[in-house]
């Protein structure tokens, strides 16, 4: 089986792979690791690991309150990470970058603090990750606001045919994912933001899957809030980001109360620190933020345009490979130029758990289940799926291993 390797692969792929120590390891039976679960979490380059270890070994102290040299170094490193995030997002101000523990917390922060009342409407989509559904269910149940959503077309796109009905002056929030973690769809977020702003709604973008693989410019796309997580952009777990426009963040009440988020505290009443600190109660994940800063430096140095081209090339190669396996049905768009690098599929006659188990026995790591997108699965009449997801270190040979592994899986379960 020979398939043409498409254009657009990172030319220094072998050099890049050497940056990721985990890619060297072998699994049970001496199988080399084939890591195709990057939409779940990405692997970490040595430079990120080193930045975190160096901080812990040489600069560790609490931030903002320690009146000593280590405290100053730690504060500078932490706030330096905020500058890196602001540059990565092309944010107008570094103070608009709020560190959270993950994207879920960032989305919950907005959903929990944004003022909603009965008669208001929140619009989400049927392809959201649970983390951009459940917080809005909670917010609308609490406030009496109405929750509506864009449906999906049969080919895995947002169904925008009823956009005029959904976006009305009642609509206060439009919250949607930039890139679907299940279908891979890249949504026309700039156009939807433009339409949302016409009715006065604010736009909350979940960029968890976009930030790793697309250039993200919060101003160009017209977002009001944007969330992403560190661990999918080659950074550590435990650190996420909420970016929001200053005038909106200034209006929102605090999310969590505690140390560092106050201006003054008396027993009867407190006043709040300016943003971003208003939303960062307690000691933050300091070394994780520094690791995230190093990760954003790393992927920015390679270049998001180049990473995006690599993802498109690998995804195209993966889609071609899957098309060659009888019994495979891909969920979501099949045009690699119109989608991200996560491809969910069904294999006729074999449950996704069993597919993942067979692949794992050959060292191939994929995800099986509903990928925290149960409504999107239900929309396509699917209980669960297998998902292969690539990143900047993924090679065509790894895709070949997956395709061979699927043929092996069919033989093992005697289907096809």
């Amino acid at each position, binding site marked *: 089986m020979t398939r043409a390797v498409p254009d657009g692969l990172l030319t220094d792929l072998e050099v890049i792979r050497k940056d990721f120590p985990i890619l060297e390891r072998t699994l049970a039976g001496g199988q080399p690791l084939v890591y195709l679960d990057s939409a779940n979490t990405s692997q970490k380059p040595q430079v990120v690991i080193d930045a975190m270890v160096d901080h812990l070994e040489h600069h560790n102290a609490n931030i903002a309150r320690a009146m000593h040299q280590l405290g100053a170094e730690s504060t500078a490193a932490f706030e330096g990470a905020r500058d890196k995030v602001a540059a990565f997002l092309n944010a107008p101000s570094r103070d608009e970058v709020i560190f959270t523990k993950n994207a879920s917390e960032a989305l919950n922060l907005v959903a929990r603090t944004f003022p909603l009342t009965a008669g208001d409407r929140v619009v989400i989509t049927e392809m959201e990750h649970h983390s951009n559904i459940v917080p809005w269910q909670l917010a609308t149940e609490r406030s009496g606001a109405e929750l509506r959503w864009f449906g999906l077309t049969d080919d895995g796109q947002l169904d925008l045919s009823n956009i005029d009905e959904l976006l009305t002056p009642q609509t206060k929030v439009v919250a949607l994912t930039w890139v679907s973690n299940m279908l891979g769809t890249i949504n026309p977020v700039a156009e939807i933001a433009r339409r949302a702003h016409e009715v006065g709604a604010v736009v909350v973008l979940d960029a968890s899957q976009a930030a790793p693989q697309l250039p993200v410019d919060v101003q160009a796309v017209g977002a009001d809030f944007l969330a992403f997580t560190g661990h999918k952009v080659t950074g550590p777990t435990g650190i996420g980001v909420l970016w929001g426009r200053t005038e909106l963040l200034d209006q929102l009440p605090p999310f969590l109360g505690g140390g560092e988020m106050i201006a003054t505290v008396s027993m009867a009443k407190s006043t709040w620190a300016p943003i971003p600190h208003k939303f960062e109660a307690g000691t933050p994940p300091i070394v994780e933020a520094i690791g995230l800063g190093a990760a954003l430096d790393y992927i920015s140095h390679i270049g998001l345009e180049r990473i995006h081209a690599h993802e498109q090339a690998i995804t195209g190669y993966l889609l071609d490979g899957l098309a060659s396996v009888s019994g495979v049905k891909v969920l979501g768009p099949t045009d690699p130029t119109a989608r991200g690098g996560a491809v969910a599929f069904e294999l006729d006659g074999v449950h996704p758990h069993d597919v993942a*188990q067979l692949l794992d026995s050959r060292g191939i790591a994929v995800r099986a289940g509903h990928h925290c997108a149960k409504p999107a699965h239900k929309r396509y009449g699917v209980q*669960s799926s297998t998902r292969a997801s690539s990143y900047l270190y993924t090679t065509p040979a790894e895709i070949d291993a997956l395709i061979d592994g699927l043929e092996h899986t069919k033989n093992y379960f005697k289907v096809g």
Partner: protein
Amino acid sequence: MDLDALYQEIILDHYRNPHHAGLREPFEAEVHHVNPTCGDEVTLRVHLDGDRVEDVSYDAEGCSISQAAASVMTDLVIGKPLADALGTQDAFLELMQGKGQVEPDEDVLEDGIAFAGVAKFPARIKCALLSWMAFKDAALQATNAAVEPADTHQGALDA
């Protein structure tokens, strides 16, 4: 990694040809259990005749391990005194939680011993246990329903 220890031929046979599948009447209790991490689901009904498990019927969606476990479970509990069926459930639970160190008793678990290998795959233990936990839940609800026929909500909240 010994896949064949996980996918015993007995398990694959039950997966391809599940026993007692489908939902039947009559029943005293029906439960719906899900494995939230993967979305596997089972709807399961228990029909008791006095202290005897007269029928267990189910509609399950899930992987080979969860489907085969449901099939084997019904073979093991239908027709048995309820106390014995719950004892078998205990034995299966012990086997699954034994990290591969528990020697299964074939006299008690019969085809269920084929699942011994599942205990070595932590991610799959919940798959094997889904229908067994649903059976225990439904059987206890059915027992309560017999004792307190007026209280139709008994047990429904934790289903």
